[in-house]
Structure formats: structure tokens, C-alpha cells
């Protein structure tokens, strides 16, 4: 089943919001193919009727009381922001110019 084309790699990179350089495209295609042909061994394992494991938490998740408590003050929450203004995060134009 494996074999991911360079086109598909470009598509996946776009889904993941990554721009690849011309040099990266063949390199990642090559490496991902290598890894995918290795993980393809799982196709041979019979798993019919086997339930899926998403978590190995050995108990039911415990939910916190839904009550108000102190949260990060705005200045602290914004302290690491690349750009902020008047208590907001600033981002470039959403629709372009």
C-alpha cells in the first residue's frame, strides 16, 4: 500500500500548514516512503473485531468541579504573544490585501 508520491507529500504538508522547500520535497517523500513501507507490516495483522485503544488511562477520567476559579491575568496570558494590542492578540490580515 505504501508509496506516497511527491504530490501527496506536498498535499499533506499543506494540510499541516507547512511550506516545503524544493530540496525538502524529495527528501521527505523518500523518508516517508521508507517509514510507511515499514509500518505497512501492520496490514498483515488480523484485527477483526478487536476494539481500538485510544487511551491507556487505567481509570475513568475524573472531571473537575465546574466552578469559577482564578485564571491567568490578561498581562500574563499576553506576555509571550508575538504581537498584542489593548489586551488582544494581533494577527496579520485574515483575507489578505
Amino acid at each position, binding site marked *: 500500500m505504501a508509496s506516497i508520491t511527491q504530490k501527496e507529500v506536498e498535499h499533506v504538508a499543506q494540510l499541516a500548514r507547512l511550506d516545503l522547500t524544493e530540496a525538502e520535497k524529495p527528501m521527505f517523500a523518500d523518508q516517508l516512503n521508507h517509514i510507511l513501507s515499514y509500518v505497512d507490516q*501492520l496490514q498483515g495483522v488480523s484485527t477483526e473485531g478487536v476494539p481500538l485503544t485510544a487511551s491507556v*488511562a487505567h481509570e475513568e477520567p*475524573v472531571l473537575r468541579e465546574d466552578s469559577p476559579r482564578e485564571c491567568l491575568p490578561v498581562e500574563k496570558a499576553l506576555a509571550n504573544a508575538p504581537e498584542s494590542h489593548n489586551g488582544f492578540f494581533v494577527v496579520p490580515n485574515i483575507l489578505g490585501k
Partner: protein
Amino acid sequence: MSLFKLTLKELQGKFTAGEISAVDIARSYLLRLNQVEPKIKAYITLTPKETILQQAKTIDDGLKAWRKTQPLMGMPLGIKDNICTEGIRTTCGSRMLENFVPPYDATVVGSLRTHQPLILGKTNLDEFAMGSSTEHSVFGPSRNPWNQKFIPGGSSGGSAAAVAADECVAALGSDTGGSIRQPAACCGVVGLKPTYGRVSRFGLVAFASSLDQIGPITKTVTDAAILLNVIAGFDPMDATSANRELPDFTKAVKKKDIKKLIIGVPREYFSEGLDTEVSEKVQDAIQVLQELGGTIREVTLPSTERAIATYYLIATAEASSNLARYDGVRYGFRAKESRDLAEMYRSTRSQGFGPEVKRRIMLGTYALSAGYYEAYYGKAQAVRTLIQREFDAVFQEVDLLVSPVMPTPAFQLGERLDDPLQMYLSDIYTIPASLSGLPAISVPCGLSKIGLPIGLQLMGRPFEEAMVLRAAYAYEQATDWRMKRPVIRS
């Protein structure tokens, strides 16, 4: 004797008895850091000298009135740089978080701080904990204190190297597929991955949330128990943290025999690909366990050979989702001069992440994408169930499992950097316990001919860290590998 050579237990003993002050400890370690850190490069960020001395002085002044100490008071610690420390930058070894200063402490760090330890700094790691050698750190690799041409292991390689090189008395690491145990084995120290849920993950920068777990890296098994006592426990801030009774783990490290324990040797962990020197040392260790009263039984875990493929689908799928948050908006790196938001996202992520992280994000995105989801991610989740069931069945028969930690001793820096799959394959013995959430420890069990450490792994049932510690302690006390320390050459 130089204070930095002592174990946590020993250092604590002298401090509590009033033989030494926190300032004495701070001075000794600052000197040590000065001497060896330029060679080992275990840390990404060191706490300023003045801060450490000031903290030590505060501790000593407070103690003058009444001498009441807590187990970690004044103890010099290293913390892996993917665990948030309020006010101390936490980089994850990535350009993306190079200047990120967390606004809060991880729960484990908060627990440590109530003891007033001396946090010496943040230790090096592979970018976002993805790797087995620290070579994927944007700050450059750490060195193996036993031989600086070799990797210290990873991803918690900085923590393991720091402990082995006496650059802190104990450290915290994180383990997703082996990142505490494998570097501990490479550096000849002890590393414990607790049961999934035993230690809060709140404030641990997420890599693969169903696998990540924080744990101690220390000089001895006793020290690991001391540290686990402080960090373990229920945390309302982590919905997967277990609300369970907490034993005193230091009680587990008192008895020097393991009578009545049945120890399984999984055949698949000794097959093809295992280096002969590693195999010999582990076999010797099994002999010792038998002499200590353990009953040795061969068992089989046939799905072991599927573990790497399973892990590299699940871990990358989870990572691709977890790392979606790095978008240059709220914190972390932002690329300059983008025309619009979409371009800013892409440029930020392309410039902020290194090649291994990109590789994994893409693999994970692919495994989760339409048309492949069931064949890859779904399949891996089903195989994960099979792996878990095999462990469950075997643990009906045996109390513990024993195995190597890594198929070979540490490899040379650069050796596997161009072949990602080759790097992944070195995780074969540590990944299964991660996929099943089991507690597992790495203890030193010998040196290779060229003088590199080899580790022994003991795995236990969920929440039976005490039994794992007990057997590891008995083994450690019966041998003298822990006395061997690296000589750091200039």
C-alpha cells in the same frame, strides 16, 4: 569528598544532619558545572549563579531558627526543558519556543518547589522530545559523559547526562516511547517511567498525550523512589491522572531480596538484532535476579515486533494534532512579513520546526487523513489493544518482566542522523510498555568492552511501581555497577 559525587539520599542525609549547608551544596555544584558543562552540554538554560546562591542562602537562613527539612530541600535538580517552569524559559529544544517563558509551573514543578530545591537549570532534549539521541535539539546535542563521541540517548539525554556527570543530583525526564529509560541506560544511571496516570502531565508540553509520562532520572533506585514520592499523585488539572492511593515508594527499597517474585523473560526481547554484549550483560543480570530468590520463567509476547510500527503511527498522529497549536499567534515564534494569516501560519511552522518534527507532523497528518485513517491510525489502535492484551495475559503468570532497554549500547553522534527509520528501531524494547501504560525502570547492568553503559529494564503491572523498584533495588544492591562513574576527559 566532593559533595557533587553523593547520591540524593547521601546529600540529603548530610544536609538534614546539619553537616553541610545549602550554600555548600550550591557552591560545590556551581564549581562542577563550570568544569564539565562546556564539554557535556547537558543544559539548555542554566539558572544564574547568583540566583542559586541566593536561594541557598534563603534556605540556610530559614533553617537557623528551626531545623526542619523536606526531602528535596536544598537538593540540586535538573528539569527537562519540555516541563513548564514559571519564569524560566522552556524551549522544548525548538526554535518555536526559544523565547517562551511559561506563565505557570507544571504540577510536578510546583510539587518540587514546595520542598525548596535548587533548580540548577533546564536540560537538553530532542526537539519536542522526538528522538533518541538529543541530536534533534536546535541547541545541538549533549554528550555522553562516558565517551563524548557518543550520544547520551534521548530524548531526555540532557537529564541523563547531567545526572551521570554529577551536574545535578537528580533530574526529571519525560517518556513517551522510552525517553527516560533509554538515555538512563546510555548514561549508566537509573530512569523510571511511572504508570500512565501516576504523575500529572499538566504543564508537560504535549507530544503524544496517550503515552507521555514524567519520571525521575537518578543515580540510584532509592533516589528514584524519593523523587517519585514527591511528583506522584492525583491532579485535578489532568483528567488522565489517576485518583489512587499513593504508597510510600521509599518503603519498597529496603529489602534486598526478591523471594516469591516470579520474573518473566519475554523471548521476543532477546531475538535477532540484540547486540551480543548487551545480551550477555542482561543474561548475567537475570542470573543475579534468580540468585536473589526470583523465579525466572520464559514467556512470550508475540506482538512485540509490531510495537514500533504501532507506536510511530499513534505517536505521530497525536503529535500532529498536539503541535497544531504552534501557529505564531499566542506565544512562541512568529515568522516576519507575512501578507496574510494563512501565510503567517505556514511560514511560522516551516521556520520554527526542525526536520524531525516536520517529518512526524506529516506522517501523523497522513495517518489521520481521509482515506488512510482506518488503514493506518485505526489499525495501529487495534494492534495496540493486542499488545496490551498480551501483557495482561503474561502478568497473570508473572509479577515482573525483565529485558534489555536498548538493542545496543549508545551509538556514535551522527551515526543514525540521516536514517530516521534506523533511529526509530532502537526503541523496540521500551515502546511496548509505553503503549500499554506500564511502569518500567532502567538500571545499569554493566559496561561494554569500550566502556559504555548497558541498561536492564524491569516492567511491572499498572500502578505497581513499588514492585518494580523493589526488584531493581535488590539487583542494584547485589551488584556494584552504581559505583562505576564516568571520568570526564577534556
